[in-house]
């Protein structure tokens, strides 16, 4: 902690100048920061409506079973119960899904995972609703669950669509080529839960016109509305999704599995209905990171340059497709990492099992392969006796190189610069060199750690993610900017999930219009769509749309003045609410120029199109890429196998820093989530049954587990196709940090460390070893 001051200045890297107070580059705090800190910020679980009813879901206790009968009569007759709905009450489409409609709203014949919804109850008290849900008599014929994804290929189909959700056989180069050195590895990645700090909650209010309004913390309101309307048998414009405060999102939130039953109950009872999921339901209901099995063979020459990579990647999708095909595309495309690989043969599969459902979680696909290819790079370095950082430097990708998908990297790819930055950053002091500060041992302040048994390890990892939706997804966003009475308002359906979009939108308008007071309207589906809050797309497309709209307002504002003075609008400048011309002749205020008018403009941003991967895994599938290098320093108690991450040094390719404080928090949050992936976070199952779905059994990192995170370098090489040249920053540290921690534990213990999260027995060094 003593050398903070020295590293802070290094971190900024470059000419020191006072950061602006407003606009792009300012560390503008979020507008809702105070309310969130004080606990007055309203989340969906805080909503209330006059005369509301409470909903509860009945969930399957079995991972795989045939439903023989459902008897709701006992539940319906309970006093206080107002409605009980099952699959028979779904008047529209019986199934839904973001890419493939394969998930039933309520299981009708077969349940395919532990916790699948079977019925829902609305009652006048939450306890009554829960008791009524428990009183629904369901007769099951328990079936053998398929829980090993390797057996899913041969197993009886779990779903009419079959067990194989997607297969990508990527072929690139010469399959017969052999390297002088070959290393092989088998890697397993566990099931991370997004574990949002607030569990799912929502309120559905019926409308007099037969429609329904759903108030919830959705991250993709328009898709959710369309899916819900189809299941209700209503037109999309009869359903309105209103986004409330989102209590944390690192994946899809408030998935339709909660919203559709809620809406159905509201439509059926004619009363507002509220659902607040328990933590257990939250663990059972929402999507997790894909547990993944990876087999790798790396070929290299004697200098350590990669010749060929062969890999098999198997994603456990759980019972339903959800976003699995997107995750698989990312896993296959980035299977070799940010390295030049002349020949690559990657087979990827996403298969159905009776395990808990998998779906979109930050950095999906890319995170799992990063842990594996970086394990391979460490193995190669050990086999060749080359320093791990040096071996990586010999292979790193740069702009102009080609990915195994055949796509040329056209965006900035300063991978070597990132790796050098973390490698050359001074290592944290050893405890013996700083006797004045107390040493937090692995196991914690009251743990059993013993200094003599602790080994320190240093490991490196390089990670990459794609930005925006891939493979031809239409990534459009629309935004409106309104200026009236010296105040600007942004109307955009991009959901603020905590990623900082609304702060960014305010900064963009401040920058373009010179207006200090900017409000961001709350989101509902009456606004034009802005797409899901995933893959950093709002920084890019929604930010781009806000900028265009703001520029259009600027032109509207300045055009009459420019005309009057016979100059173009480009020669006028707006700062601090004042309009001045380049020569100082004209000087007026924005308020005066507005003359009581209200100015509106709406604009869209749509990045260049992409194409799906073909049957050989080839295609320009990604709009842009972001890179990150992390050096992890860990302490391992080699007798107990307890691990503490001491320091994470991060260098990241960010394109351009738009809000330094916000960027730092995004990186710190991502690295901390990655530490959880590496060490503790794994939702365990026994034959498809989730064990201990609570926050005692599922250990998230606490402040003592979070490392000292050093942002060593932020490479600002602007991406010309991105608005402002900025790259989204949240996902790539999540992808890279677990691999870096694993590499450091490998260095400390000499053990292979091929499984995440790292189990204590994998970090123990026994006398014989």
């Amino acid at each position, binding site marked *: 902690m003593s050398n903070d001051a020295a590293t802070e200045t290094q971190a900024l890297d470059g000419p020191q100048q006072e950061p602006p107070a407003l606009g792009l580059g300012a560390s503008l705090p979020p507008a809702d920061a105070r309310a969130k800190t004080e606990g007055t910020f309203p989340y969906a679980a805080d909503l209330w409506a006059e005369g509301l009813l409470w909903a509860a879901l009945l969930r399957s206790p079995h991972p795989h079973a045939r439903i023989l009968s459902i008897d709701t009569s006992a539940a319906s007759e309970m006093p206080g119960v107002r409605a009980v709905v099952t699959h028979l009450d779904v008047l529209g489409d019986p199934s839904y899904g973001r890419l493939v409609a394969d998930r039933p709203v309520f299981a009708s014949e077969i349940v395919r995972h532990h916790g699948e919804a079977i019925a829902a109850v609305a009652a006048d008290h939450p306890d009554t609703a829960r008791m009524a849900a428990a009183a629904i008599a369901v007769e099951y014929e328990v079936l053998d669950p398929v829980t090993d994804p390797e057996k899913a290929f041969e197993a009886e189909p779990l779903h009419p669509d079959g067990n194989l959700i997607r297969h990508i056989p990527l072929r690139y180069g010469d399959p017969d080529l052999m390297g002088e050195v070959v290393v092989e590895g088998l890697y397993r990645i566990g099931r991370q839960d997004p574990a949002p700090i607030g569990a799912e909650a929502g309120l559905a209010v019926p409308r007099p016109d037969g429609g329904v309004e759903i108030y919830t913390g959705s991250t993709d309101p328009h898709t959710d509305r369309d899916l819900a309307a189809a299941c209700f048998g209503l037109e999309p414009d009869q359903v309105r999704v209103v986004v409330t405060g989102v209590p944390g999102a690192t994946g899809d939130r408030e998935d339709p599995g909660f919203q559709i039953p809620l809406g159905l109950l509201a439509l059926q009872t004619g009363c507002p209905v509220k659902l607040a999921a328990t933590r257990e339901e939250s663990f059972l209901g929402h999507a997790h990171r894909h547990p993944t099995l990876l087999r790798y063979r790396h070929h290299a020459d004697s200098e350590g340059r990669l010749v060929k990579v062969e890999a098999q990647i198997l994603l456990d999708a759980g019972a339903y497709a959800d976003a699995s095909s997107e995750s698989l595309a990312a896993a296959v495309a980035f299977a070799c990492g940010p390295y030049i690989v002349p020949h690559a043969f990657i087979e990827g599969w996403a298969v159905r099992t009776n395990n808990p459902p998998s779906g979109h979680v930050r950095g999906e696909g890319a995170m799992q392969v990063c842990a594996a290819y970086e394990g391979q790079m460490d193995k190669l370095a050990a086999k060749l006796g080359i320093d791990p950082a040096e071996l990586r430097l010999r292979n790193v990708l740069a702009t102009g190189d080609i990915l195994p998908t055949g796509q040329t990297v056209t965006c900035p790819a300063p991978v070597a610069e990132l790796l050098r930055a973390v490698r050359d950053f001074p290592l944290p002091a050893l405890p013996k060199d700083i006797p004045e500060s107390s040493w937090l041992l692995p196991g914690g302040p009251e743990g*059993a750690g013993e200094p003599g048994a602790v080994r320190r390890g240093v490991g490196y990892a390089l990670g990459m993610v794609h930005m925006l939706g891939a493979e031809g997804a239409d990534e459009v966003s629309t935004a409106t900017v309104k200026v009236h009475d010296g105040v600007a308002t942004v109307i955009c359906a991009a959901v603020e999930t905590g990623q900082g979009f609304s702060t960014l939108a305010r900064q963009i308008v401040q920058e373009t219009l010179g207006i200090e007071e900017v409000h961001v309207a709350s989101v509902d589906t009456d606004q034009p769509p802005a797409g899901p809050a995933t893959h950093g797309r709002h920084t890019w497309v929604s930010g781009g749309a806000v900028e265009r709209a703001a520029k259009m307002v600027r032109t509207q504002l300045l055009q009459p003045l420019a005309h009057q003075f016979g100059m173009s609008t480009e020669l006028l400048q707006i700062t601090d609410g004042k309009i001045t011309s380049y020569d100082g002749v004209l000087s007026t205020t924005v308020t005066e120029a507005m003359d009581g008018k209200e100015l509106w403009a709406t604009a869209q941003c749509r990045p260049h199109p992409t194409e799906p991967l073909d049957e050989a895994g080839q295609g320009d599938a990604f709009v842009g890429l972001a890179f990150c290098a992390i050096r992890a320093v860990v302490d391992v108690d080699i007798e*107990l196998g307890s691990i503490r991450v001491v320091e994470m040094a991060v260098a990241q390719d960010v394109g351009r820093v738009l809000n330094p404080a916000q960027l730092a928090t995004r990186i710190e949050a991502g690295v901390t989530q990655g530490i959880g992936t590496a060490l503790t976070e794994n939702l365990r199952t026994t034959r498809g049954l989730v064990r201990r779905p609570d926050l005692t059994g599922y250990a998230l990192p606490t402040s003592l587990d979070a490392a000292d995170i050093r942002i060593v370098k932020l490479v600002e090489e602007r991406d010309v196709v991105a608005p402002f040249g900025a790259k989204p920053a949240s996902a790539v540290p999540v992808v890279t940090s677990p691999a870096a921690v694993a590499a450091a534990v490998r260095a400390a213990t000499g053990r292979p460390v091929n499984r995440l999260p790292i189990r204590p027995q994998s970090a123990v060094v026994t006398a014989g070893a």
Partner: protein
Amino acid sequence: MCQSCLVRPVSTYGTANTDGQPGHREGAAGLTTHAPQTAQSVTLPASLDEAVAALSAMPAAVPVAGGTDLMAAVNKGLLRPAGLVGLGRISELRGWHYQDGHALLGAGLTHARMGRPDFAALIPALAASSRAAGPPQIRNAGTLGGNIATAAPTGDSLPVLAALEADLVVAGPGGSRREIPVSHLLAGREMLAPAELIGFVRVPLLHAPQVYLKATGRTGPGRATASVAVVLDPARRGVRCAVGAIAPMPLRPMEAERWIASLIDWDADRGLAPEALTAFGEYVAAACIPDPAPAADGSEPPALPPAVLHLRRTVATLARRALGRALP
């Protein structure tokens, strides 16, 4: 009571109530069913005997001290107590006093209080286990008596009390008091009768080093995967050790205790060679996690699974380190 933990009606959007009145409302039909499931009575007695009387008067009522386990079960819907007897205002339970070489600890002592230095000077291992018992919020509320009554396998104070051979002073109706060894309660040999309450815990003051060590899955607070308490009793020339979290109750490896006590030179500096410490650790671990018995036909017994072997190694390491820290 359960209302407040389920919903906080904050005035929010168009649909919110605007009159700012918190609390539960009746349903639109004017019918509400919540009342029968809510605790009907909450009693806050000021003395131990009053508390016992309150429990006798209402046998369905549940005593609550810190509530760190009980209220979690209520919030989860696992428990719907008909009534609560709050023990928080019984000041006699919140401190301790001395009685012929023992400390009589009030069952209402919080982990936070027991973690403080003055208490650590008296019973170091109990203080160490209290400091390790979860995050500050839990330690501020959770109590010694509650830890015993919950009797979770991972309860941090339990192996320490087992190693100290503590006795419980149980209060019953009519001012009656009886003593039962803590190990008897934890093993289910003796149970609390209806309306009985744990009043005090009688712990011997040994005036010798004691150590409590625990292994967890993370650096931050967590439940023990294994824990070991080692206390020295120089007056009786004994070493007592208990292993927690690996079985439903703390385990005492008595043979290992007697063997290591016989090696210690109690009249000199009590030091032991590192090999003896290692052997003690392995003795303790093998006693608590034994090898599978050989099959009747004389064939090789099945090997322990790797996770169990790791647990045994963890217990051995903890026991070795704990004894090493207790000896000079």
